């Protein structure tokens, strides 16, 4: 078993390897910070080995292999993509090191290769956004016209948040039309640029809803809308996913209408799980991170609770 304390942490306590996706967004940095500080504060954890894979699966696999060579006690993996983990996770299993998934999941066929997953469900987030949209625009008789700002083309959150959203709209039978849907690469810069082009191309007249896959793009788009002389939140309703401080602040200012939370601050929760796993306790296969969704009435109250 990998339970022996062979890390260089010196005293007792666990040596944990954390293979993080990258530092591609504020959400992600908040997540890393949360995990790192939780590990620091936690006496049961001797050392957290942190590797940033810069959104590259190969680098992440390399990191996991490095953890195996270092014989850490538990490996925490926030997989960049769902597939392709079989071999390296098998190697971890052969070396007797338990693996915990954080944030994103991996394909179902590899379920045996990790102990548990703690994280959010992007499709569910999309569904929450969809549910609110379906309710809000149920009475919209002339059809709901929607603009979508997607995340990085091909990335899991972008795919799932899109899928979940339209799944619900279809299921609810909302009469909608996608005016345009483009990638803003999860950044404010591109979110703003794409929104500007949306406005010059389609105008905002008659467009009901903007669905932005994350905060940053949403905030960029809000600027573009304001600069074009429209009032975000009123002339066009806006949903964003993530829920950072800045996002909630915009909500409080009335510039957007709905926030689906995607909570990065689960470091402490993760450390508990890690310790349980190391002790060989049985844990649920999936532990959801506590996440909510907030409408205009809740922004004000929620703002002080925001940690990132």
């Amino acid at each position, binding site marked *: 078993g990998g339970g022996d304390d062979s890390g260089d942490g010196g005293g007792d306590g666990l040596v944990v390897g954390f293979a993080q996706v990258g530092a591609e967004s504020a959400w992600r940095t908040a997540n890393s910070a949360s995990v790192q500080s939780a590990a620091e504060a936690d006496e049961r954890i001797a050392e957290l080995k942190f*590797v940033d894979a810069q959104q590259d699966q190969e680098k992440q696999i390399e990191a996991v292999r*490095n953890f195996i060579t270092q014989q850490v006690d538990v490996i925490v993996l926030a997989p960049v993509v769902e*597939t392709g983990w079989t071999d390296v996770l098998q190697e971890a299993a052969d070396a007797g090191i338990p693996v915990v998934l954080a944030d994103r999941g991996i394909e179902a066929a590899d379920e045996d290769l990790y102990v548990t997953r703690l994280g959010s469900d992007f499709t569910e987030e999309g569904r929450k956004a969809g549910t609110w949209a379906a309710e809000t625009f149920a009475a919209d008789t002339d059809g709901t016209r929607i603009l979508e700002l997607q995340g990085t083309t091909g990335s899991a959150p972008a795919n799932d948040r899109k899928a979940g959203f339209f799944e619900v709209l279809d299921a609810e039978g909302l009469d909608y039309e996608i005016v345009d849907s483009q990638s803003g690469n999860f950044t404010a810069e591109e979110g703003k640029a794409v929104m500007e082009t949306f406005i010059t191309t389609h105008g905002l007249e008659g467009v009901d809803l903007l669905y932005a896959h994350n905060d940053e793009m949403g905030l960029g788009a809000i600027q573009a809308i304001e600069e074009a002389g429209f009032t975000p939140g009123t002339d066009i309703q806006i949903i964003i996913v993530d829920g950072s401080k800045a996002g909630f602040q915009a909500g409080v200012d009335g510039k957007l209408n709905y926030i689906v939370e995607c909570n990065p601050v689960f470091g402490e929760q993760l450390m508990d799980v890690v310790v349980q796993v190391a002790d060989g306790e049985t844990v649920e296969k999936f532990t959801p991170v506590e996440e909510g969704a907030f409408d205009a009435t809740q922004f004000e109250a929620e703002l002080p609770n925001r940690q990132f």
Partner: protein
Amino acid sequence: MTAPTLTARPTRSKLFDGLTRYVPIGATIGLLAALYLGGVANYPNFDNPQVVAKLFIDNAPLLVVAVGMTFVILSGGIDLSVGSVMAFATMACAWLTVDAGVAAPLATVLVLAFGTAWGLLVGAVIHYFHVQPFIATLVGLFLFRGLTLQISATDVSMREIGFFQWGMTHVDFGEVRDGGFWLPYLSFVAFAVVAVAFVVLHYTRFGRGVYAVGGSETSALLMGLPVARTKIGVYAISGCCAALAGVLAAFATKSANPLANVGTELDAIAAVVIGGTLLTGGAGFVLGTVAGVMVWGMLNTLIAFQGNLSSWWARIVMGALLLAFILLQRVLARSGEKRRT
């Protein structure tokens, strides 16, 4: 009249002439060893042979791409399309085998043929139409990323295809726990590519032609060397290597990801150049490239073993290590230089 004829230069030893060009690669290898020893001294388990073996497991695809890139850079060109071609190759494997039901070996061959064909095309455009290599291959970077995304915007699993299990089959050299190590088959594929590239570059007319074209294309042309064939050939090799790397990635993960290998072209170029090959062409060694890839992997390994760096400190340290490396390499290599004020 006893005409005085030209006499050999007395002051310069013949040995030295031949050796100066090995100074950069010697420096690279020496520094690589120093990096390794530094790791051993500082981190427990770093002396585990698997640490070195791992460089060739995780970096096998990069190594293959970098070998192809070495040909291109030696000829004085550059190939920015490799990352995208690689991702496309992996995705094409997945699409052909999983969706189209093509037999996996056939799919592999098709993908390799496709990579080569792309290389031939881009090489021809560069040679005959005088399009700058940077632009012509940048087209490939965009095009294949686009096509990959069009095949699938999500990752695709190939785990059901038995053929792709082959690549990660272990060959054990002793037990890892007792100081042994293991390597998968795909590492051996990469080694084979290096060996073939070495022989081709150093012992065939084509290979020497690559150096000649890189030294001076005009001269090579006027010497009557097959410049067109050489220039197009190096891109074909690079395309083929990129496709092969894509196949190796399919072996390594049995999955295809449309966003894989973004920026791999830069990693490959960096590895080649760190390995002592001049970006202007004509000078360098494929073994230098191997050293370059190892340096790249070694730096990442050191950072992983250090383990307590935040994302940004990791980057800064990586940059600093790279800087120290190239500065030292430069200082060591300088001793072999002459004729400058």
